[in-house]
């Protein structure tokens, strides 16, 4: 399948063993004779991890680029002149011009917005579905869990790229927002399973804790316990998984756009530009290399960030 699923599958196993949000055992006595929390330990680890800082910096840069592309380039990405097709670098276009005579660098910068938007929205949608399903399955257990777990198994058995192809072929609208919405919908619909499993397992751990028993004894109802007590304590592992998923969603969107069924023309997307660049690689390579580099760096940044945070929260690795 796509890289996305392989990554998700590998991370999945590790993630299930991941942090459960409960306070860590006070394993070392700090300078002030105070037991350190799991988060404190994790932060100490992260602070010394260069990969964490590099990926965080990249995430910040790309987010800024998505919000304010005009700061990074002065050229209009849609200002294309066929007369300068594949022309070399000049006046702000530091990587030259592509097949249509558009500024390669400017297009890559403006392409960040669609990619991050799709990735973030898909991760948000995934997060909501995963939280609801995982919470219900984990909290109520018994037949609710049995049914929902089977649903997860079935959805997990659907190959993402193939299903996305079929679903997206159905969307005939070419309007910018309809396509973005369709891609987000498809990715969220097919991609929530891993996160749901993580939420389910951390909810199962959290509901056995003393503070839940205490809340119940004080007369709190199911919904109050779920949303006020269990949710905040099982959110952390889900967020880590979603960070990694965000990177994978960006890769998936680019793949779909590359195939010509994802985002289309008025929207600038890396997947499409890579495809065009690929076809004309013999004449000029930079229109292929620049969007490729942008895409690879963005995906890597999110995956490495999630990976670093998860490792830091995993006491077994210490």
């Amino acid at each position, binding site marked *: 399948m796509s890289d996305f699923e392989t990554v998700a599958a590998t991370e999945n196993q590790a993630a299930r063993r991941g942090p459960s949000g409960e306070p860590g055992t006070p394993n070392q006595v700090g300078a002030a004779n105070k037991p350190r929390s799991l988060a404190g330990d994790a932060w100490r680890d992260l602070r010394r991890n260069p990969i964490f800082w590099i990926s965080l910096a990249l995430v910040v840069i790309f987010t800024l680029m998505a919000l304010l592309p005009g700061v990074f380039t002065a050229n209009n990405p849609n200002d294309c002149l066929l007369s300068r097709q594949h022309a070399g670098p000049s006046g702000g276009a530091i990587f030259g011009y592509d097949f249509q005579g558009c500024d390669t660098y400017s297009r890559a910068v403006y392409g960040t917005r669609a990619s991050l938007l799709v990735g973030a929205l898909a991760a948000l949608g995934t997060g909501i579905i995963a939280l609801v399903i995982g919470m219900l399955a984990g909290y109520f257990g018994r037949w609710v869990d049995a049914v929902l777990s089977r649903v997860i198994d079935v959805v997990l*058995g659907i190959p993402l790229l193939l299903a996305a192809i079929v679903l997206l072929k159905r969307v005939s609208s070419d309007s910018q927002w309809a396509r973005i919405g369709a891609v987000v919908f498809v990715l969220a619909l097919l991609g929530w399973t891993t996160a749901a499993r993580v939420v389910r397992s951390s909810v199962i751990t959290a509901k056995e804790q003393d503070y839940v028993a205490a809340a119940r004894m004080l007369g709190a109802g199911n919904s109050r316990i779920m949303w006020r007590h269990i949710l905040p304590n099982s959110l952390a592992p889900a967020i880590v998984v979603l960070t990694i998923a965000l990177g994978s969603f960006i890769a998936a969107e680019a793949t779909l756009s590359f195939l010509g069924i994802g985002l289309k023309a008025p929207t600038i997307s890396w997947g499409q530009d890579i495809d065009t660049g690929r076809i004309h690689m013999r004449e000029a390579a930079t229109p292929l*290399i620049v969007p490729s580099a942008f895409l690879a760096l963005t*995906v890597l940044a999110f995956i490495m960030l999630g990976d670093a945070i998860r490792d830091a929260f995993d006491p077994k690795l210490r």
Partner: protein
Amino acid sequence: MFRYILRRLLQMVLAFFGTTLIVYALTFAGQGDPIQALAGERPVTPAQRAYLTEKYHLDATGVGGFFYRYFDYVKNLLQGNLGESLTGRNIGDILQQAWPVTVRLALIALAVAIIFGVTAGVLAGIRRASIFDNSTLVLTLLVLGIPTIVLAPLAQYFLGVKWQLFPPTAGSDPTFYALLLPGIVLGSLSLATALRLTRASVAENLRADYVRTARSKGLVKRRIVIVHVLRNSLIPVVTFLGVELGNLMSGAIITEGVFNIPGVGFNLFRGIRTEDGPLVVGIVSVLVVVYLVSNLVVDVLYAVLDPRIRYE
């Protein structure tokens, strides 16, 4: 064991009907007038219309009619009758020509993953936290993070076009040499995952009690690693590679498209590009079945190799 297989089988049947139902509902049902679509611009005589309506049960409306036609589609799919593409070729014939190429490519990718991934994984697992281990971890993360749509065209450009180490594209009857670079690109993902899996499992098994026992008996390290640790560590890797073979066969859309390899993925790639609906649906339906069956086989295999799986 029997119960486990039965449960997995039921799950697969559910997934099969779930996915084919989605595929069917989204592509065939709810289209305008299928008979007119069949005839194109030409007028359809009432006799032809009546004949086709009866043949395909198009007069039955509502849920009953929908499911009748859906089961018709599933029956045809299971019998290998996939219909014709828009260019008039039999989709079954297209697939028959394409499969051998795709299987060859998948086997090359798998060989790359086993030879490099497993070997490096064992070394990294034995020397945990060494420079070799840390660099392979970072490297595999890079490979896992870089999408195929970046890796494949860049490999094609640098290794094929610029430095000319490999043929940049494969022709209609690809040689082993022409398939080598696409095989490496396709296999690099599996390689990274296999490496990580092997490393984790070797590192875990090295700490097991039986290894300590073997060591205290005075066995040399090489024998401990090869006879005791490897045999136990490779169980998850073997199953992973089994799943991967299924994935590789269905997942080579991008790689085959970029390197122009006339396999199944390439036909799907072309079908999407030329908006050939029947071809896309036919290939996707078959690939879904391949994917589900290979997953089932691997899960059962896993349960045979590791009894703990059966009692989850």
